């Protein structure tokens, strides 16, 4: 009986290492929240010399600490390249019917932001693009 248990554990150990190594990428994709992203743009107003980041209003989020967006970044760290999200604080300058115009208060250039998503987004978590 003892030997059967050890053999089972050993087989499980070998199989799990090999399976996760072979199909880990697919599994990570499957477990990552699916998101819909939108490219950002820039717009300058006539009364201001600077350009503001613009994106659909839905992507601008608010909580007790202020306004923020989920900025999408690509990473090519081991084991494979992937997209991750970063919570980036912004300051809303102007909003019209469709778009929000913001100043980025932390972080650098934002090329795309998350508009809709399923599941829970956490800072630095891997995402799957819709």
């Amino acid at each position, binding site marked *: 009986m003892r*030997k059967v248990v*050890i*053999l089972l*554990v*050993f087989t499980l*150990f*070998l199989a*799990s*290492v*090999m399976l*996760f*190594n072979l199909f*880990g990428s697919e*599994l*990570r994709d499957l*477990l990552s929240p699916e998101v819909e992203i939108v490219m950002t743009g820039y717009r300058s107003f006539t009364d201001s010399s600077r350009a503001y980041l613009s994106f659909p209003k839905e992507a601008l989020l608010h909580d007790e600490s202020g306004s923020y967006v989920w900025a999408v970044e690509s990473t090519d760290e*081991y*084991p494979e390249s992937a997209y991750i999200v970063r919570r980036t604080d912004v300051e809303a300058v102007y909003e019209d019917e469709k778009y929000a115009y913001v100043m980025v208060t932390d972080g650098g250039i934002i090329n795309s932001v998350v508009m809709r998503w399923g599941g829970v987004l956490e800072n630095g978590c*891997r995402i799957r693009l819709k």
Partner: protein
Amino acid sequence: MVKRILNLGMALFLVIAALAVVSPVIAVTVLSLSEGIQPYVDFYLWKPVYLGALSNSIIISLGASVGTVIVSTMAAYVFAKVKFKGRDLLFYLYIIVMMMPFQVTLLPQYIVSREFGLYDTHFAMILPGIFAPFAAFLLTQVMKSVPDEIIEAARLDTSSTWQILWYILIPTIKPGIVCAWVLCFTEQWNAVAEPLVLMETREKYPLAVMLNEIGSGDVLGFAATVMFLLAPLLLFAYFESEILEGLGDYRLK
């Protein structure tokens, strides 16, 4: 009374010695669980830096140890049971290679792997591992303990050397084969210097090399260390009696 005190002192010493040996394993296991099972989930799924290395370890260790057992069993049969000129000289050469520190043969291994185009592949580790002399030496000694009469009796039924080896000798020396396999597996599993010399791509390194990079607060690294301990531990637990028998007496009773 004096004997009793001596026994007690010896028991105490053994307990302390056992604790000294086991305490790093306990410490690393406790540290790996300091953040729950999340480091293990990260190990398998989200940060599989060490998982790839572990599968490299499995490929190298299994490939080399299984190959060693196959080659060494046949070599042992020849050394122990086939009489030919120069047999003992050849066997002594084997022993000389076995006695050499592995660092001596590392540079030739590097040159040969370069010349054969095996450098930076797993075969650079597996092929020299297959022809490691220790298993052949061990199995030769084990095979020598099998009486010749058994082989002579088998010769009455078949003239095939292969059948004698397969049906008579291998079942008789099974504990020795298992013992050689586990020892070779463990040797390859723990190898650090050879992969560093024979491979250069980080993704191809076995886990023994990667564990070198673990820092003091690296919980994921601790989880990887526990996973690294698991295979030899399970193998020893499974084949405990065979290993002890394989290193012990072989005469047929």
